[in-house]
C-alpha cells in the first residue's frame, strides 16, 4: 500500500517530547469497571484472592529476592526467563510485586498476538492485565502511562522448550524490548524465575497434532493431553524462587536517540540475557531440592 504523504505530516508533529501530554490522556472515570486496556480490577482481584493466592502461597511456596529493585514509580520494563506450557510464572511475578513490594503496582503482561484469536482466552487475558506485545503498546504503557510491564523476550521459543533444555535461555528476539525501553527512557529490571520449568515440564512437542488442533504448540506434559484442556493447568508443586536484579536505566544509556543505535541495543540485550543466565545458574546451583528449595 502506498505510504500516505499525510503520514509524515502526522509524524512531524510528534506528541511525545517534553511534557508527556499527560493532560491529554483519557481521564479516569471512576464509574467504569474496566480501564482502556480492558483490564478489570474486579476479575483481577478475584483471581488474585483465589487461584494466584493458592498457587503463590501453598502450591509453589514462592520465595522472592531483591524486590527493592522494582522501582516504586516511573515506567519500568521487567524482563524474565520463561518456561512451561501455559506458564504460571507471569502470575507469580505479578503476585510477588503485590505481596512483597512496599508500594504495590499493577503489572501489565505482554502476550503474543495469537491470544486474541482464541475464543474465551481473548476475553480473559486483557481482564487480568494482558496486553498484546506490540511495540506501540509497550511504548504507551512505559512512556505515557509510566506502568510496570513484564516481557518474556524468549517468547514462544521459551514455552516450546523441552525439559531437557531447562534453564537454558533461548535467543532474546531481536532486542525489541531494549529498543522499546530506550524510546520510553524507562528502566529495565532483569529477573529470574526458577521452578516454572519443573512445574510443567514438556517432554515432547508433537507438531502433527499441533497442526491438527490449530493450537500454538502441542506439548506432552505429565498431565496434557491426558486430562484434556484442564491438563494445561496441571502444575507440579515445584518450589518457586523469583530474583529481581539491579535495574538498568535506559535514560543514562542515551535514551531516545540511543534506540537508533542497533549495536548498542544488541549489546544491552546481550547484557540483560547474560545477567539472567548467570543468576539462573547461581540459583539452580544453590537449590538443594526441586520441591523444597
Amino acid at each position, binding site marked *: 500500500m502506498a505510504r500516505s*504523504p499525510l503520514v509524515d505530516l502526522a509524524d512531524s*508533529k510528534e506528541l511525545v517530547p517534553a511534557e508527556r501530554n499527560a493532560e491529554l490522556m*483519557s481521564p479516569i472515570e471512576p464509574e467504569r469497571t*474496566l480501564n*482502556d486496556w*480492558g483490564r478489570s480490577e474486579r476479575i483481577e482481584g478475584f483471581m488474585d484472592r483465589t487461584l494466584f493466592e493458592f498457587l503463590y502461597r501453598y502450591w509453589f511456596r514462592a520465595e522472592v529476592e531483591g524486590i527493592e529493585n522494582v522501582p516504586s514509580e516511573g515506567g519500568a520494563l521487567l524482563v524474565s526467563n520463561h518456561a512451561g506450557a501455559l506458564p504460571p510464572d507471569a502470575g507469580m511475578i505479578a503476585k510477588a510485586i503485590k505481596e512483597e513490594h512496599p508500594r504495590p503496582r499493577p503489572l501489565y503482561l505482554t502476550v503474543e*498476538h495469537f491470544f486474541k484469536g482464541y*475464543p474465551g482466552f481473548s476475553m480473559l487475558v*486483557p481482564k487480568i492485565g494482558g496486553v498484546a506485545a506490540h511495540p*506501540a503498546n509497550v511504548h504507551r504503557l512505559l512512556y505515557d502511562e509510566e506502568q510496570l510491564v513484564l516481557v518474556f523476550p524468549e517468547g514462544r521459543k521459551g514455552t516450546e522448550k523441552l525439559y531437557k533444555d531447562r534453564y537454558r535461555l533461548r535467543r532474546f528476539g531481536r532486542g525489541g524490548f531494549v529498543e522499546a525501553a530506550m524510546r520510553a527512557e524507562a528502566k529495565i529490571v532483569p529477573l529470574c524465575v526458577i521452578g516454572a520449568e519443573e512445574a510443567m515440564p514438556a517432554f515432547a512437542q508433537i507438531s502433527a497434532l499441533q497442526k491438527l488442533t490449530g493450537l500454538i504448540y502441542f506439548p506432552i506434559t505429565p498431565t496434557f493431553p491426558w486430562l484434556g484442556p484442564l491438563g494445561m493447568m496441571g502444575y507440579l508443586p515445584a518450589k518457586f524462587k523469583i530474583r529481581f536484579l539491579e535495574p538498568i536505566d535506559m535514560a543514562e544509556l542515551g535514551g531516545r536517540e540511543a534506540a537508533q543505535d542497533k549495536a548498542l541495543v544488541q549489546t544491552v540485550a546481550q547484557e540483560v540475557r547474560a545477567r539472567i543466565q548467570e543468576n539462573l545458574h547461581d540459583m539452580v546451583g544453590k537449590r538443594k531440592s526441586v520441591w523444597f528449595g
Partner: protein
Amino acid sequence: MSSRVLITGLSSYWGGRLAQALEAFEEVEAIIGVDSVEPRIELERTEFVKVSNQHGLLSRIVRAAKIDTVIDTRLTVNSVSASPREAHENNVIGTMNILTACSGDDSPVRQFIFKSSAYYYGSEQDDPAFFRESMLRPHPPRTPLERDIVEAETAVAEFAEKRSDVEVTILRCANVLGPDVDTAFTRMFALPAIPMVLGFDPRIQFVHEDDVFHAMEHCVFHDTPGVFNVAADGVLALSEAASVLGKRTAPILPPWGTGLVAGPLRSLGFKVPSEMLNLLRFGRGVDNRRFKAAGFEYGHTSRETLLKLGEHLRLDPVMRGIEGSYTYEREVEDFLRWSPHVKRKGPSEASGVEADREPLGF
C-alpha cells in the same frame, strides 16, 4: 478565517447538521451545499444545488462562488446502507471528482476537510491497542468498504501533496453514536440484547454525533493540517458498553464461520455489515491526543455517549411521532428566500432576533 464554504453531501446527516451549525456564524459569508437528492432539514441561508458527483459542474460552482473551504462529508461508512457498487461510486469516484473540481491553478479553494472513518485502520488480531494517525493497518483491507475508504484517503493525501497551498484535513472518526445518527452500532444497541461473538469481548471506542460535527466546525475555524483521529476518551469492552446501556449481551455469533451466520441474521433483521464482523471480534482503539493537542475539546466520553444513547433508546418509544418531521419543499424554500413579497430581516437586524420577539401578553 474562512468565509465561503461548500458542503458536499448536504442531504446526508452530517452535511445537513454542519450546514445548520455554520449558519450561526457571521464570519461564514456563504454556505453552499451540494447533493444528488434534496435535503430533509430546515436551512436558513444555505443554498442547495442539486448536482451529482460531476466534476465539471462542481468545478464551475466552486469557481463561480469563490469557494475557499470545501467540507466533504459524504463518505459512506456502512456497507448495509448502500450496495457495494453505490458505496464505491460515492467513496472512490465521488471523492476523486470533488478533488478534481478543487484542483487547477485557478481554483480558489484553500482548505479541504475530509470526513473519513477509523475503518481506515481495520481491525485485526495483531493491531496495536491504540492506533495513532501515523500508523498503517497491518494487513490490506478485507472488505470492499474498507478498501474504498483507504482508496479515498489515498486520493485525498495525493491531492494534499500536489497542492501544498491547500490546507488538507482528514478526520478519522470512530464509531459514531447519538440519538439522531443512524449507524450500524446505534441499530445494534437498539436491539433487546447486544449480539456478541462467542468468546470475544472486543474493546471499542465511540464518539458522540455532536462531537463529530463540532470537530468539522473546529477545523473550519482553526489551522489543522494533517490527519486526526476523532474519538471520545475511553475505550470500552463491548460487555461494558452493554452494561452501561442497561442491556444484556447475547453471544449468538459463533467464533468460527461468523460470516456464514451473519447472512441469515441479516435477513432476520440484525443487519450486521461485513466490516463490523472483525470489529466485533478484535475491536479497535485509537489515540485521540493529536486532535486534543490541536485545541479540540470533546463534550462526551465514550461512556457518557453510551449513557446518552441509553436515555434516548428508553425515551424513544414514548416520544415517537410527537415532533412533526420537517419536509423540504423546494418551491416553498425558494419563495421564502427570493420572493420580493416576503419581508426579510436585513443583516443588521439578524443579530437582534431577541428584540424582534413579541412581548409575552401580560
